[in-house]
């Protein structure tokens, strides 16, 4: 996230300065909305998360002690809101929720070994490609999805991601690795097909 293009004063926020709060909303509504949309995949849900994030920030800014940066604090609220909404919408507990995380690599060992990077650049920019990428993120378990979005989409550091999610750095790294490998796998299936198709067309 852009760490305040215009410096936002935490002091002013804490003293209830509405203009400063509006500046904070201006600076961070974009990234927070994007996080929510990537997390939930549905614009109306993303908007709920966006609104609740800033409502909560408004209620609790007096308690913000500045132990993390303002952006990490907002990401923390937004991540909680997004995860709560996901869990609320899916009341039944699935097996993957209760199985403990283990460090067994077997479930995410690579199975796709096609080098699809030589595809023409336009392939990666198409709207079809974008929707494949978005749905691949949606297929991640939510605890990996949120880590991946914070770290690799929003560009937080491992430490900041841990602060936002109340996780150790080791836990962040484990989830991030799994998420990245799963996404690579899914993109490899799609782009691998595109590559084969392109080669076939060239031959004919």
């Amino acid at each position, binding site marked *: 996230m*852009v760490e305040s293009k215009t410096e936002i004063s935490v002091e002013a926020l804490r003293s209830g300065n*509405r*203009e400063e*709060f*509006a*500046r904070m*909303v*201006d600076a961070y*509504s*974009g*990234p927070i*909305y*994007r996080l929510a949309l990537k997390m939930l995949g549905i*614009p109306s849900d993303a*908007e709920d998360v*966006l*609104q609740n994030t*800033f*409502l909560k920030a*408004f209620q609790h800014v007096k308690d913000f002690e500045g132990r993390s940066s303002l952006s990490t604090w907002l990401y923390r609220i937004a991540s909680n809101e997004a995860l709560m909404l996901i869990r609320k919408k899916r009341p039944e507990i699935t097996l993957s929720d209760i199985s403990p995380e283990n*460090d067994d*690599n*077997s479930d*995410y*060992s*690579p*199975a*796709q*070994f*096609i*080098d*699809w*990077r030589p595809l023409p650049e336009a392939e*990666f920019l198409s709207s079809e490609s*974008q929707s494949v*990428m978005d749905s691949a*993120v949606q297929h991640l378990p939510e605890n990996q999805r949120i880590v*991946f979005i914070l770290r*690799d*989409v*929003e*560009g937080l550091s491992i430490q900041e991601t841990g602060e936002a999610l109340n996780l150790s750095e080791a836990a962040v*790294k484990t989830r*991030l*690795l799994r998420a*990245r*490998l799963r*996404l*690579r796998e899914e*993109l*490899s299936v799609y782009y691998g097909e595109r590559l084969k198709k392109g080669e076939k067309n060239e031959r004919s």
Partner: protein
Amino acid sequence: MSEVKDPKCHALLGSLSDYVDGTLSEELCVEIDRHVAECQDCHIVVDTLRKTISLYHDSASENLECPEAVRERLFKTLNLNDYIRH
């Protein structure tokens, strides 16, 4: 990798994120460099993993603003109408 059942490929998996992020110790890094140079499958996994991460990273640099209507409703919900900038 898993298909070829080489224990080296499997050992590499756990360090892959740190490797592509450049946060791995030099010693381990050299070891992985050496393995990747010899193992075609691992080479592809490393390269396409890097590409995967950069595709997501690049897609995020676009559309940083939320839609205008969403933004307006947000300011309304927060009672900040007076401060909305167009």
